[in-house]
């Protein structure tokens, strides 16, 4: 593991062999391989923790029914009215459900101890002790037994006594299946295995494995609508702004003196450097019913309104404008530097030939922009497909879901909505679609743009 091993044998690099040997303690730091593995480790750990694991887990969660109701860690077993209904409807065990749901009175040691604590007359306790283990399915039956005791207690005491023996399972919550079963068997010792299994499943409050998410995703009419919205949003923004308008800006600033060109580039860069929250706020100010647009158009007799949300058409205009203004700057920069790289002699020659500006654009500039356009299109397709912030902050998918795009639908399904019932599993299934598209497209781009060509061979090693 000495330095010499890593040094290229050929050429002047051979001098490396004369290097003093490193101190043994740090020998591993002195080899290219050892140092490399150490230096790349933090990045590798972050990638595993925040890219690889989440990709896999998105797939895992997509096959669960996790939601706010089920929680995300394990669940408990609760004999809720809902669970009893499931037991009746899905398993046809209405009788069992009725028994479990009813109040039940069991004469047990626990109840007797409670009586002693309440300082109930000892004779009553002794009297009940003789009936230890008996079960009553209604309060009336049990209270009749208490009244029949030799020292007949008054009505209020009877009620207190019966409360102490109430062992109803309705709404009882158990941490484990075992606790649930022993409680159920105390009430009904003759539970069959089928009934136990049904009970376990019906009362479980945690999440379970399922493929329903995908079935729902495919069959839901909502999916088609969101899909259409997303395709429309990506295509329109990409075409109009990220490439079209960006090209217009790049070419226009190419034909004006450097100073104004620089100013316009900075102006069009503002949307990109501005935090999304404040950038969208400025658009809201423009579109609000007391905002600039309304006040300005009021002069022409057009009634003030919230231009951003008053109709689906206007909402789309704003969503595309807001996202497009941000997107245009990237294309502008890339196209501008591509135009700058075109040899000046080409322009001069064209000028001498008396070429009009649009002829220069058509025959000189556009052919040179082929690859930059492809790059921007590829890159921004993925960005737009997964962008949430601007749309969330501006229309939030409204009005009435008209501008709900796929990424926003994930947010509304799994992360935040007004109803408060977050469906993590279904949201993960929706996210999985984007994750798969993201992986496929980014691998495709890697091939397309041949990033391997950018690798420089290490020169100290071979």
């Amino acid at each position, binding site marked *: 593991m000495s330095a010499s091993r890593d040094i290229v044998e050929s050429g002047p690099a051979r001098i490396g062999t004369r290097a003093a040997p490193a101190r043994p303690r740090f020998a591993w730091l002195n080899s290219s391989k050892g140092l490399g593995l150490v230096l790349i480790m933090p990045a590798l750990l972050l990638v595993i923790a925040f890219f690889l694991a989440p990709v896999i887990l998105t797939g895992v*969660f997509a096959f669960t029914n996790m939601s706010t109701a089920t929680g*995300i860690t394990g669940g408990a077993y609760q004999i809720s009215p809902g669970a009893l209904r499931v037991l009746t409807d899905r398993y046809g065990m209405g009788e069992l459900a009725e028994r479990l749901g009813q109040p039940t009175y069991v004469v047990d040691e626990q109840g007797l101890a409670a009586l002693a604590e309440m300082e109930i007359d000892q004779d009553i306790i002794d009297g009940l002790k003789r009936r230890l283990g008996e079960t009553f399915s209604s309060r009336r039956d049990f209270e009749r037994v208490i009244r029949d005791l030799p020292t007949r207690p008054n009505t209020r005491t009877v009620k207190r006594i019966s409360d102490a023996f109430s062992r109803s399972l309705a709404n009882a919550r158990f941490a484990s299946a075992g606790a649930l079963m022993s409680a159920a068997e105390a009430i009904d010792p003759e539970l069959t295995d089928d009934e136990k299994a049904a009970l376990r499943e019906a009362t479980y409050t945690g999440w379970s494995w399922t493929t329903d998410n995908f079935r729902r995703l495919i069959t839901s009419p909502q999916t088609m609508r969101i899909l259409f919205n997303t395709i429309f949003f990506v295509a329109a923004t990409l075409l109009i702004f990220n490439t079209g308008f960006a090209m217009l800006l790049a070419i226009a600033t190419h034909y004006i003196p450097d100073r104004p060109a620089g100013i316009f580039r900075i102006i069009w860069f503002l949307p990109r*450097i501005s935090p999304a*929250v404040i950038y969208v706020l400025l658009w809201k*100010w423009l579109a609000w019913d007391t905002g600039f647009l309304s006040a300005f158009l009021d002069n022409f007799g057009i009634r003030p309104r919230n231009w951003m949300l008053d109709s689906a058409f206007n909402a789309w205009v704003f969503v595309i404008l807001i996202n497009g203004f941000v997107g245009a700057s*990237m294309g502008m920069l890339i196209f501008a530097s591509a135009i700058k790289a075109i040899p000046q002699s080409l322009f001069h020659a064209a000028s001498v030939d008396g070429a009009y500006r649009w002829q220069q654009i058509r025959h000189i500039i556009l052919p040179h922009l082929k690859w930059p356009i492809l790059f921007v299109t590829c890159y921004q397709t993925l960005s737009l497909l997964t962008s949430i912030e601007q749309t969330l902050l501006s229309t939030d998918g409204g009005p009435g879901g008209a501008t709900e795009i796929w990424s926003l639908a994930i947010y509304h399904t799994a992360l935040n909505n007004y109803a408060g019932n977050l469906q993590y599993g279904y949201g993960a299934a929706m996210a999985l679609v984007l994750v798969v598209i993201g992986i496929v497209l980014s691998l495709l781009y890697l091939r397309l743009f041949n990033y391997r060509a950018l690798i420089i061979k290490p020169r100290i090693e071979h």
Partner: protein
Amino acid sequence: MTGHLKTWPIILALSILSAPLVLMYAYLFIDTVTNSPPGSFIPNEFTLEHWAFLWHTPPGRPSIWRVTFNSLLFAASTSLLVIVVSSMAGYVLSRLNVPARGFFLAGVMVLHAFPAITLIVAIFLVLQMIGLYNTLIGVILVKAAIDMPLGIWLMKGFYDTVPWEIEMAGIQDGASRFTVWRKLVLPQVKPGIFALWLFAFLLGWSEFILPQVLAPSGDVQVLSVYLASLIADDNNFDMALFKSVGLFYIAPVLILFFVFQNYLMNIYGGGSKG
């Protein structure tokens, strides 16, 4: 080359196209220090009342200074983490002979293109499971990890421009590979590290969706989430207040951008998302 062509029509057309943006940003400043009569946008009085949020905390909301501190902590930590991890990994990808180096490099490119935001559901659930939900540490780690592929890619580019002779000379003088990196190569890419730090800091400062989802409430709220919740509150609609908080929030970004735009333009052009 444009000698026989007029430029003023182009400048005029660009000015008209840019007018909405200029208007929006101009009024971001104007509205925070003036009042205008209803229905008009010509201010009729100067006022500082919209800046009262700086010393007066509205009920039910955290103090603006607390939130600003959180934002600062968030942006500073993520950017620091990004430059440390990237300057290490970038050197490996640029210079060192590790196994599967090409694979790592391709991996960085794929990760850079991959939209990490799609993983937010899984990350949200995992942070809840391991108890890092609604903590700054959790969201800092996530943000740093998401910005890291770009950082590694940029740092690799910076290292690529450092002459090999520097390293050769260092090794010849008996320095270890580690010392060569630390003492000889790192100083060469200082401007690059600074640019990356600045860029990552601005990304962290501007980030909204991650803190909104992973650390939304009270004590760990950052400025973006604070401002968004202020705007979303239908009961207290006050555009001038929103703009004042917004200007307070965006001012460091604008200042840093205008001072260091030469550093930043290159990185933005290199492909940030959006």
